[in-house]
């Protein structure tokens, strides 16, 4: 009888194992889609400044001919963004699209509307390479603005260099910062982690525990905090976690045990994962077992501050790559909020770092496009992108420059925020990321230190 049923038992085991593998594989796949945006009538210039705003700003101020739809030949721009279960960066190109829609409805760029193509991908190199070719060969885009992808920079960098495209993006992969053809408006995980560790070191902690998700590129990210801690003669423990995190309790206990009572735990995770760890620490009563907790930019959301509650006021310090939207009242910030309200229906996260990045990238692109006097071609558009110099975005500490450099880290000065009764408030104003990070030193060596925004 046993022998008779042995094949069935094996089948049952294989069934379970196969199903488990299929489930795991399913977690890494999804399908993509594209979307386009067309605009209205010619005109334009928009140079949003970071000057204080006392009057309310209308979205129509994004263009130079309010209410006049651009009707000229469209200028095609494109973007590639990761959109997969658990990781979606589509808010960034969607906000850029909202900005372009606003420009198109209010005069366009020298009379030309912007036609914006958004391709999404699921961390599949072949798909990402195909997306780039789709944008160039089928959609005939003249420039790439708003790319935000886990690996797009790694996959497409040489392609953009070969074709002479100078990408304005939100960076994640190392190649977004270390190649001539990519300039990001954000600092990305490495330099944002640098900022968080730098703040902890400035508070004279005795030890740093730096924990991040175990994904490709962790060694590259970890090198920055390691350099900062070494320069400060402070021991650092580097940890990585499998995501999604299912054992947050043990993760939090290990972090706190390793850091010690005068140490700091610095996290580099997406908002959901960081929230899981911080909530676990709170439930276990661990939040006060270390001197402070730190986090890279993704933790900079009011939702996180509200969910964690007052126990984390002045205990958690989050690096903020862009100007805090709640406490800032400048023309650019008001315009950003007005455009988001009127044109940003597809921006699901609302006000926050992601939509700020999309706004900033679109703002820089429009500023560059307006400087073109001749025909709009791949050559003229990318030359204009590359020529952007000391532009006041109103969203960053420093003026933003692309330039002809072998690498680009134009955003290397940032804020630190902390929860305060459900809101993130500024704990430290604009501060340079330390040149102790060799990449920052190398960039400043070729590009210098950008002037602060007025």
């Amino acid at each position, binding site marked *: 009888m046993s022998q008779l049923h042995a094949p069935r038992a094996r089948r049952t085991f294989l069934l379970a194992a196969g199903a488990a593998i299929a489930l795991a594989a399913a977690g890494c796949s999804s399908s993509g889609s594209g979307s386009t945006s067309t605009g209205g009538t010619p005109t334009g210039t928009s140079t949003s400044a970071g000057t204080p705003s006392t009057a309310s700003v209308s979205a129509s101020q994004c263009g130079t001919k309010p209410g006049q739809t651009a009707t000229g030949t469209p200028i095609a721009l494109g973007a590639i963004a990761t959109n997969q279960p658990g990781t979606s960066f589509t808010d960034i190109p969607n906000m850029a699209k909202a900005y372009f829609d606003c420009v198109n409805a209010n005069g366009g760029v020298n009379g030309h509307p912007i036609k914006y193509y958004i391709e999404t991908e699921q961390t599949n190199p072949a798909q990402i390479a195909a997306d780039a070719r789709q944008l160039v060969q089928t959609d005939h885009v003249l420039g790439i603005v708003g790319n935000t992808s886990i690996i797009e920079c790694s996959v497409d960098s040489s392609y953009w260099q070969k074709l002479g495209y100078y990408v304005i993006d939100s960076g994640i992969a190392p190649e977004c910062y270390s190649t001539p053809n990519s300039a990001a408006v954000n600092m990305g995980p490495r330099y944002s982690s640098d900022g968080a560790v730098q703040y902890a070191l400035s508070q004279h902690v005795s030890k740093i525990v730096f924990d991040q998700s175990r994904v490709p590129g962790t060694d590259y990210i970890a090198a920055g905090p390691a350099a900062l801690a070494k320069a400060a003669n402070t021991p650092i423990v580097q940890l990585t976690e499998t995501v999604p995190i299912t054992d947050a309790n043990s*993760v939090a206990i*290990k972090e706190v045990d390793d850091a010690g009572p005068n140490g700091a735990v610095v996290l580099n995770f997406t908002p959901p994962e960081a929230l899981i760890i911080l909530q676990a620490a709170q439930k276990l009563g661990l939040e006060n077992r270390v001197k402070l907790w730190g986090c890279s930019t993704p933790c900079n959301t009011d939702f996180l501050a509200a969910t964690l509650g007052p126990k984390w006021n002045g205990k958690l310090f989050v690096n903020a790559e862009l100007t805090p939207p709640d406490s800032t009242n400048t023309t650019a910030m008001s315009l950003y909020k007005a455009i988001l309200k009127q044109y940003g229906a597809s921006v699901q996260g609302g006000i926050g770092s*992601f939509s700020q990045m999309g706004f900033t990238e679109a703002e820089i692109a429009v500023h560059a496009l307006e400087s073109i006097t001749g025909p709009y071609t791949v050559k003229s558009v990318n030359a204009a992108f590359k020529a952007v110099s000391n532009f006041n975005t109103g969203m960053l500490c420093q003026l933003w420059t692309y330039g002809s450099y072998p690498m680009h880290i134009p955003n290397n000065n940032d804020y630190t925020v902390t929860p305060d009764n459900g809101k993130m408030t500024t704990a430290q104003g604009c501060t340079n990321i330390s040149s102790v990070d060799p990449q920052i030193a190398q960039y400043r060596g070729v590009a210098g230190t950008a002037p602060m925004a007025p």
Partner: protein
Amino acid sequence: MPPWNDFEPFIVSGLALGGVYALSGVGLVVLYRATGVLYLAFGAVGALGALIAWSLSTKAGAPGWVSWLVCIAVAAAVTLGYGMIFGPALARREPLVKAVATLGLTLVLYGVMDLLWTTSGGQARSLGLPTDNTAFTMGQVQVTWTQIIALGAGVVLTVSTGAFLRFTKLGTAMRAMANDREITATLGVPVRRVEAAAWLGCGVLAGIAGLLLADLVALDPTTLTFLVISSLAAVLIARMRSIAVTFGAAIAIGLVHDLLTPITSLTNYRDMTPFVLAAVALLLMPRRPVMASSREEA
């Protein structure tokens, strides 16, 4: 090797993690014993219920208890609906086909959740229970009553379900039907009704598990949907048959997993624990056929 004191908090967290695996694992075994279906959508339906509960309580302002009941009701309704529509058609198919069919439901629900509760813009969600606010200290860390309830629910579920399947008429009918639907029907058992009861019970368990896991682990579709994979290890160790062994295996997996955390050389490999233990157990245990055992019990 760290001193013993360093391990103490990980025993507490390990028991909590084991309780999490046990909740899903026991639910999987219950339905498998009753219908012969390995219900891989167990985590996804719980996640769907928990997300609806979150929307009700945070967006619609519904009282907590209403949203919890809705969570359980949604999970029960989806599971029952699936069982009623696809159960009869799949009844005569191979176990692999039945499992893959539930994988289809998993992916559909996962897609729906990703669409309706997007993570775009860095959105994160959290579902707390009132029992999170009361805690006591054990092994240098706080233990919340939610963790105690989860562990207790696993024990209660194990004992009560085991007794139900063994000592009640309906439980006996479920086990008989799982082994041979045709013969059971010829004996006069209303198979459709018994099947419905099994699917409904499993759905209720999925809803309760979803609610507790959303609090204990994370209110995240990916996490809750795929948590079932680690629970499968406990189910495999129990050979999809013994609820008590499933519970014990789940607790053991949770404990071993967390006790590896403070050991620097092994900490990065601790996520392999469920699968390593399952593989070792399957290799060492005598090769007793799963289905034959159930048949004898029936």
